[in-house]
C-alpha cells in the first residue's frame, strides 16, 4: 500500500540528502547495513556478558558478579543472541540486502514499511538495553522467561526489567512482521524476467521459507508476551497459578505456567529454523561458488528447506520433556524430531557431494563454510541424543544441552554469518576484506569454539547443571570438571577478543581494502552482475536484467570462463541439466 503511494510522486524514495540517503533511507541496501550494524553492536554487548559469565564459572568471584548479575547476564545474553542478533542479521541484514539483488528487483516492494521495520527494530533494541539502567536491572528469568518465576519477586529484574523485555519483544515482532511481509512479497511478486522460483539461489529460498516461519511463529511469542505482560501489570491470571511468595498468598489463581511453555516453544522451535534456514541457503551458495561446481541436487535442497520449515512446527514439545507432560505426547514429539533429521541430513550430504570433485578454493568464505558443515553435523548429532525422551531426561538442564545448542544454533550460524560477510562484503563496499586477517580470525574462531564446546559436552555428561552461578561444594562434580571450566573460560575469552580482528578488518577494509571489482569471486548469480559496485539506488541502471538460467552454472565445459552468469542466454552457453529440469 505504501508503495502505491510512492508511484504518485515520481521519485519519492530517491535519496536527496544525507538524511534520506543514510538515516531515513528506504533503500533496501542501506536498511540492510543499518540492520546489520545494529545487530552486531548489540551482539557485542551479549558477547561481553558471556565473557563475564565465563569468568564467574571458570574463576569464581574473580570479578564483581553476584548471583543476580549472573542471571541477568545469562538472560540478556541468550535473548540478544537468538533474537536481536541472529534473527535480525539473517532476515533484516542478509534478507534485505540479497533478496532484491538476487531476484533482480529494484528494491523491496514496500520500501516505506521496510524502513519502518528497521526503526521499530532499533526501538526494540533501545528498550531492551534501557533495562540495564532501570531500578532492579534487567530480567534474570532465563531467556525462556518461564512463569511464574519470571514475574514473581525473588527473580532479578521483576520490577522493570521483565516489563521492558516483554515490551521490547512485542516491538521486535512488529518490526519482524513488517520486514517479513516485504521479503515474501518481493520474492513472490517482484522477480525479474526469467527468474522462475526454481531459478532462485538457495539463499533466497532459505530466507523466504524462514520468513514464512517467522510470520507464523512470532505470533506465539507475541501472544505469550502480551498475556504475561498483563499478568505482571494488571494482575490477570493467564499463566500465574495460585501461589505463596515470601510467606504471603498472591492474588493470582488458576493460571497455567505450562501453557506459557507450549506457546513459547511453539515459537521457540521454529525460531531455530528461522536462524538455520537462511544459514543453509547462504552456505549452499558459498560452497557452490568457492568449489566452482553446481550445487548438488538443487531441487532436493529446495524441498528439504520446505520440509524442514513445515516439520519445525510439530516438534516444539521436545523442549518440554521434563515439564511433566504425558509420556505418549513426548513419544510423538521424539518421532517428529528424529524425522526432521532426514531432510537436514540430506542437505549435509548434498553440500558434501557438491564439494566432491569440486575445484575447491580455500578462500576465507569457503573455510567458514567447511567449518559450518562440520559444526552443524556435530551439533545435529547431539540433537539426536536429546531428541529421545529417555536420553534427554538425565541430560536435561546440564552443560550437554548448553554445548548442543551453542554448537548447532550459535556457532554454526555465526560461522555462516562470517563466511557470508567475507563473501558479499566486496559487493557491499567495493573492497575486499583483508585475507590474512580473515584467515587468522577464522582459525582462532573455529578451533576456539571447538575447544570451548567439546569439553562442555563432557562436563555435561558428568552431570554439571546449567544455570548455576557457583559450583562450590558439590560432591558429584569432580575436580577435573572445575579445571575444564577454567580452561573453557580462558579459550572463550581469547575467542571473544579475537572478534576484534574481524571488527578491525570490517572497518579498515571499508577504506583501505583492495578494490574488488564487480565480481571478484567469479560468481554466476545476479547480485554480482549489477552495473555498479556497490550497486546504486535502483540496482540495475536503466533496465532490469533478464535471467536465462539458474545461479549454479560453474565448471561448464567449452566456455571461456569456468562459470556462466545467469543473464547469459541459452544461445551463447548451454543451459545446465539441473536448470532444464526446472
Amino acid at each position, binding site marked *: 500500500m505504501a*508503495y502505491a503511494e510512492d508511484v504518485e510522486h515520481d521519485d519519492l524514495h530517491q535519496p536527496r540528502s544525507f538524511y534520506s540517503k543514510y538515516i531515513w533511507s528506504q533503500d533496501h541496501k542501506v536498511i540492510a547495513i543499518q540492520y546489520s550494524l545494529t545487530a552486531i553492536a548489540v551482539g557485542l554487548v551479549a558477547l561481553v556478558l558471556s565473557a563475564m559469565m565465563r569468568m564467574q564459572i571458570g574463576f569464581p568471584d574473580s570479578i564483581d558478579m553476584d548471583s543476580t548479575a549472573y542471571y541477568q547476564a545469562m538472560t540478556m545474553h541468550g535473548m540478544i543472541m537468538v533474537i536481536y542478533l541472529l534473527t535480525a542479521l539473517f532476515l533484516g541484514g542478509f534478507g534485505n540486502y540479497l533478496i532484491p539483488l538476487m531476484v533482480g528487483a529494484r528494491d523491496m516492494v514496500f520500501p516505506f514499511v521496510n524502513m519502518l521495520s528497521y526503526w521499530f527494530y532499533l526501538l526494540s533494541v533501545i528498550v531492551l538495553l534501557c533495562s540495564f539502567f532501570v531500578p532492579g536491572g534487567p530480567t534474570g528469568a532465563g531467556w525462556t522467561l518461564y512463569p511464574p518465576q519470571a514475574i514473581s519477586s525473588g527473580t532479578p529484574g521483576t520490577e522493570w526489567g521483565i516489563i521492558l523485555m516483554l515490551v521490547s519483544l512485542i516491538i521486535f515482532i512488529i518490526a519482524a512482521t513488517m520486514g517479513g511481509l516485504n521479503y515474501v512479497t518481493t520474492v513472490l511478486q517482484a522477480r525479474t524476467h526469467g527468474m522462475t522460483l526454481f531459478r532462485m539461489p538457495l539463499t533466497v529460498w532459505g530466507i523466504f521459507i524462514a520468513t514464512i516461519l517467522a510470520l507464523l511463529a512470532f505470533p506465539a511469542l507475541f501472544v505469550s508476551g502480551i498475556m504475561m505482560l498483563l499478568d505482571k501489570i494488571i494482575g*490477570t491470571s493467564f499463566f500465574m497459578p495460585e501461589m505463596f511468595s515470601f510467606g504471603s498468598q498472591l492474588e493470582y489463581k488458576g*493460571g497455567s505456567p505450562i*501453557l506459557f511453555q507450549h*506457546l513459547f516453544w511453539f515459537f521457540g522451535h521454529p525460531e531455530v529454523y528461522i536462524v538455520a534456514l537462511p544459514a543453509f541457503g547462504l552456505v549452499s551458495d558459498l560452497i557452490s561458488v568457492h568449489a566452482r561446481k553446481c550445487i548438488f541436487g538443487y531441487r532436493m535442497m529446495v524441498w528439504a528447506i520446505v520440509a524442514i520449515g513445515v516439520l519445525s512446527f510439530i516438534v516444539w514439545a521436545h523442549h518440554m520433556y521434563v515439564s511433566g507432560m504425558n509420556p505418549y505426547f513426548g513419544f510423538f514429539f521424539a518421532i517428529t524430531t528424529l524425522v526432521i533429521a532426514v531432510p537436514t541430513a540430506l542437505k549435509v550430504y548434498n553440500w558434501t557431494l557438491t564439494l566432491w570433485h569440486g575445484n575447491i578454493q580455500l578462500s576465507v568464505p569457503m573455510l567458514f563454510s567447511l567449518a559450518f558443515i562440520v559444526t552443524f553435523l556435530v551439533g545435529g548429532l547431539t540433537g539426536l541424543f536429546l531428541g529421545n525422551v529417555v536420553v534427554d531426561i538425565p541430560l536435561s538442564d546440564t552443560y550437554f544441552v548448553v554445548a548442543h545448542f551453542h554448537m548447532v544454533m550459535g556457532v554454526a550460524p555465526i560461522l555462516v554469518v562470517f563466511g557470508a560477510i567475507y563473501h558479499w562484503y566486496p559487493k557491499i563496499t567495493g573492497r575486499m576484506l583483508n585475507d590474512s586477517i580473515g584467515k587468522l580470525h577464522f582459525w582462532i574462531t573455529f578451533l576456539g569454539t571447538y575447544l570451548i564446546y567439546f569439553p562442555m559436552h563432557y562436563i555435561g555428561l558428568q552431570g554439571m547443571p546449567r544455570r548455576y552461578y557457583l559450583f562450590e561444594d558439590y560432591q558429584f562434580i569432580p575436580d577435573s570438571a572445575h579445571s575444564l571450566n577454567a580452561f573453557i573460560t580462558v579459550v572463550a575469552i581469547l575467542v571473544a577478543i579475537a572478534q576484534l580482528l574481524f571488527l578491525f578488518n570490517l572497518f579498515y577494509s571499508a577504506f583501505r581494502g583492495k578494490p574488488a571489482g564487480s565480481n571478484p569471486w567469479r560468481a554466476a548469480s545476479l547480485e554480482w552482475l549489477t552495473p555498479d559496485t556497490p550497486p546504486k539506488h535502483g540496482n540495475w541502471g536503466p533496465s532490469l536484467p533478464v535471467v536465462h538460467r539458474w545461479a549454479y552454472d560453474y565448471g561448464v565445459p567449452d566456455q571461456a570462463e569456468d562459470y556462466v552468469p545467469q543473464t547469459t542466454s541459452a544461445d551463447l552457453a548451454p543451459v545446465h541439466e539441473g536448470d532444464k529440469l526446472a
Partner: protein
Amino acid sequence: MYTNSNTLYLNEDKDLLQRAKMAKTGLYFLMAAVSSMFLLFLISYILRSQVSDWQALSQPWQPLSNTAQLWFNSALLAVASIALEYARRNIKDPDNSKLTRDCLLLAYAATVAFLIGQLLVWKKLVAMGFMASSNVANAFFYLLTGLHGLHLIGGLVVLTIATYRCSQLTRELQEPSRLRTKSSIELCATYWHFLLLLWLGLFALLTGSPESYAAIAKFCGF
C-alpha cells in the same frame, strides 16, 4: 523514477496493476500472521477454560447471557463489510464514483459505530465489576475484543486514504487514480471481510457455554 518494471519510464497502468498485486500478496500474508495469532489465543482460551477458577461470562447469571448488544455490533460490522463489497464491485463503473464514495463513508461510519458499541460493552462490564483481574474469562474478553478493535483501527487508516482518493476521483477521471483507488478499496474489502469472520469466530468463542469449551478441550486432548 525507478520502479520494479523493466523500463525506466514505464507504462503506468501496467505498473499500477503490478503494485495492486503486490499489495494483495502482502495483505494475504498479514492476514495469515493475524490468523496465527488469534488461533493461538483460541487454543490458550480453551486450555485455560478447563481450570476450575474459570467463570464463563455466558452463564445465565453472567453479563454475556444477554448478547443483544453484541449481535447489534456484529450487524454494524456486517454492514461495513457489505458496504465495502458493494464499493469494490462498483468502482469498475466510472459513472458511479459518488455512490462508491458513499459506500466507503457508510463502511467508515458503521465501523466506528461497531468500535463504540464494543466500548459500551466494556463499560457495562466494568460498571458491573467484571474487571480483567477478577477472572481470567473477563481478561480474555477484554484482550480479544481489544486486539480485534486495534486491527480495525489499523484498517481505518487505509480506509481513510481510500475514501480520500475516491472523493478526488469524482473530480478527475484519470485511469491511474482509478486503479489506485480500486486497489485500496479491494484491500479494505478483503481485510474487512476477514475481520468480520474473525469477529464472528470470537463472538462464538466468547459467548460459548462451558460445556462446549469442555467438548473442544476434550477433542484437542487437553
